[in-house]
């Protein structure tokens, strides 16, 4: 290395592995094909989400619900009331959970959504235990959207999911006995996207917060932080963050989301509460009002997750992942 006025950056420039001269131009056949696909098919085939039938979503439902609150926190991007101290505290508290070896996360939720003339409500709670890469998720639903109801079967009754040593175990709804799967790659990516620890990691770069007061939570004094985000704020789109998030969630929404965070005296994240009132951005037909509260407990104190006993052959659910990109 030869030091100069800007030694590190010049070294980095020299280490660039890409030679622009080797790259295709926008007039190349491949680029033109991509342009056509993007403009006329909305999304190139190889970039589109893997198709998922209702059935294929069933074992994921608990995980999705558990993480809704945390995914929503990633909307808390550009709060004009941010203060550096509050931000640093929230980040540190979120990181404690994100890097924990184990823990227990309990989420209670109420979500009311409408699409045109149809309205549905989901309410209940989800408990997620994690230990390393292993997860155990159980769902307790009080109100169920009609699409998850059948004449004879509550599709969400007793839904439990475990992932132990890369094997997915599911029971509940139409399959009351435990069924095991080798986890398909497409499912892994979906689970990862809603894993609370993954989502909490994004807070390190996304969330901003303002201290709004103190409260008592379980007999302990905690500090409350708040972020309010107007999704119509053009600065969100201009920053690129909004588009990236909407890509991940596959939705375009306008409205306001409020994220409140409780941090205790040990700078541990104790609770996150997310409330929102959103409408679909493009045609305004869809809307959602939600309140989701997530409590974090037993960090680094949860025993290992064990595989369930009495697992039946998976032929019962053969075809569940048909069409999935494995």
């Amino acid at each position, binding site marked *: 290395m030869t030091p100069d006025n800007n030694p590190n950056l010049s070294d980095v*420039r020299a280490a660039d592995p890409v030679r622009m001269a080797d790259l295709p131009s926008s007039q190349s056949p491949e680029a033109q094909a991509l342009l056509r696909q993007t403009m006329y098919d909305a999304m190139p085939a190889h970039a589109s989400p893997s198709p998922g039938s209702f059935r294929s979503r069933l074992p994921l439902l608990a995980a999705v619900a558990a993480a809704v609150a945390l995914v929503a926190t990633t909307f808390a991007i550009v709060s004009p009331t941010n203060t550096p101290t509050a931000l640093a505290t929230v980040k540190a508290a979120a990181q404690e959970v994100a890097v924990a070896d184990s823990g227990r996360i309990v989420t209670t939720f109420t979500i009311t959504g409408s699409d045109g003339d149809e309205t549905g409500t989901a309410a209940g709670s989800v408990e997620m235990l994690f230990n390393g890469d292993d997860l155990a998720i159980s769902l307790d639903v009080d109100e169920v959207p009609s699409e998850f109801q059948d004449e004879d079967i509550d599709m969400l009754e007793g839904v439990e999911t475990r992932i132990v040593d890369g094997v997915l175990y599911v029971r509940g709804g139409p399959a009351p006995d435990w069924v095991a799967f080798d986890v398909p790659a497409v499912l892994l990516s979906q689970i990862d996207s809603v894993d609370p620890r993954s989502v909490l990691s994004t807070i390190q770069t996304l969330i901003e917060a303002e201290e709004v007061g103190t409260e008592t939570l379980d007999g302990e004094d905690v500090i409350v932080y708040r972020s309010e985000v107007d999704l119509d704020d053009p600065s969100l789109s201009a920053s690129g963050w909004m588009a*990236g998030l909407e*890509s991940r969630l596959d939705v375009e929404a306008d409205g306001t989301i409020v994220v409140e965070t409780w941090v205790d005296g040990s700078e541990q994240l104790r609770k996150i509460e997310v409330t929102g009132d959103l409408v679909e951005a493009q045609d305004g037909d869809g809307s959602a009002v939600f309140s989701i509260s997530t409590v974090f407990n037993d960090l680094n104190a949860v025993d290992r997750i064990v595989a369930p006993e009495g697992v039946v052959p998976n032929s019962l659910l053969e075809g569940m992942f048909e069409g999935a990109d494995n």
Partner: protein
Amino acid sequence: MAKDDHFRQLFESTYPQIVAYARRRTLTAADADDVVAEIYATAWRRAEALADVDVPLAWLYGIGLNVVRNRRRSSERHLRLVGEATSAARTTPPVADPAEAIIVRQALQELPDDDAELIRLIAWEGLSHAEAGSVLGCSTNAVGIRLHRARQRLDTALSSPLPKKASNQ
């Protein structure tokens, strides 16, 4: 200008840079192609926001930041769970590197992701502090502070004889 024309203009004026951005952050050309496709697909869905965007390339980099991070998290989890870490080997040969370039790239991997990304945006993508701030969602002033710290960390990493952590890639 119609949405189609606006987007086509964006695509044709940024495509080589976006391909370069993707290839600098992925292991294989196929992965890079997927990232490029996802960036433009997202941009197409959000094309109406372009009217408010000062620097379209920085806007696309901002989308790319999320796309790459999401893919990285998914692939890391996937590799851990299914034990296919060996498949992460490069399938395309790296360009011939002088030894110093390899050392610098290894040092970059030692940095926190945000620091490394900021340095890459400035050094490889050639963004100004204001443009990098637009990508990362922070002020120009904050970019200056973060870059100063990142360079100090890079300097430390370059002085270190051995990597402090294993690369996930």
